[in-house]
């Protein structure tokens, strides 16, 4: 019984101390809120928006170009192998299909084991 009382008193004291710490923290943080912050003019913000949109556009064009170039290389390789070396073409097709089936089943099994 005495022990319980001591524990309750301790936890109450701890809560009070926590509350005081939080209050002090809030006071300190409020002081930061009172700091004057220089806000640039509207043009500066507009410039950031325009710059970012240009960057996004450039990145999109770059990504699309890489995608099309890689796709073109793969497709030309496939077409050349189909007409020049049909055996290799069929072999690549078989290996790719087996790889996809094996890879997918391993992923599904791993997920099932994880659950």
């Amino acid at each position, binding site marked *: 019984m005495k022990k319980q009382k*001591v524990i309750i008193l301790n936890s109450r004291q701890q809560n009070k101390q926590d509350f005081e*710490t939080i209050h002090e*923290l809030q006071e300190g*943080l409020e*002081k930061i809120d009172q700091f004057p*912050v220089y806000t*640039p003019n509207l043009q500066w913000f*507009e410039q*950031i928006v325009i710059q*970012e949109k240009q960057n996004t556009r450039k990145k999109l064009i770059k990504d699309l170009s890489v995608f099309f170039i890689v796709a073109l290389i793969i497709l030309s390789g496939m077409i050349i192998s189909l007409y020049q070396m049909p055996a290799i073409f069929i072999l690549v097709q078989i290996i790719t299909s087996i790889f996809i089936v094996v890879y997918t089943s391993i992923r599904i099994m791993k997920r099932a084991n994880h659950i």
Partner: protein
Amino acid sequence: MMGEREGYCRMDALIKNAKKGDHLAFAMLFKENYPFLVKYLMKITMNPDTAEELAQETMAKCVQKIHLYNGQSKFSTWLVSIATNTYIDQCRKMKREKNWQGQEEIFRKLKWHFESRNEEWNDCLEALGRLPEDVRIPIILKHYYGYSYEEIGEWMKISPGTVKSRVHNGIKSVRRELKLGEETKSHYPEQQTTK
């Protein structure tokens, strides 16, 4: 009350226009929220220069992600979530590149700002600055801005339980750091009373 509603409507209109690609609407949105954003970043980074750099980065990310903003929360809350992630990413990157200065120095500049404005430096802020950023951020978000554990967990990509324990342990270590002297003094009398 009316003014607040008008403010919301104005904000909604600006967001709609920004989503349509209006640069000016974006700029107005950012200008209005800039002081709030910088002050939030100042609190979590404890460095005014880093706060301004991160504010720019946050705005750039907002431009990229504006289509993801669904209007369920306030625009400032959305900014806080993006700013939080930007800062966490920056810390991870710096740790990876081994540019991490550690927790000791980060509040030095803020302290200097306090002194230059003849403001009294709060020891609590120093204790907060010594905490790792993944503990400092949830404490500020919970106890200063009043966000829920669920919201903070969602932004920081951790469970609400983890947020709660980080906040609790963080407060405990701030308290320990602040009252270390007092606790060691009062340690013996307290034991005597329990006996």
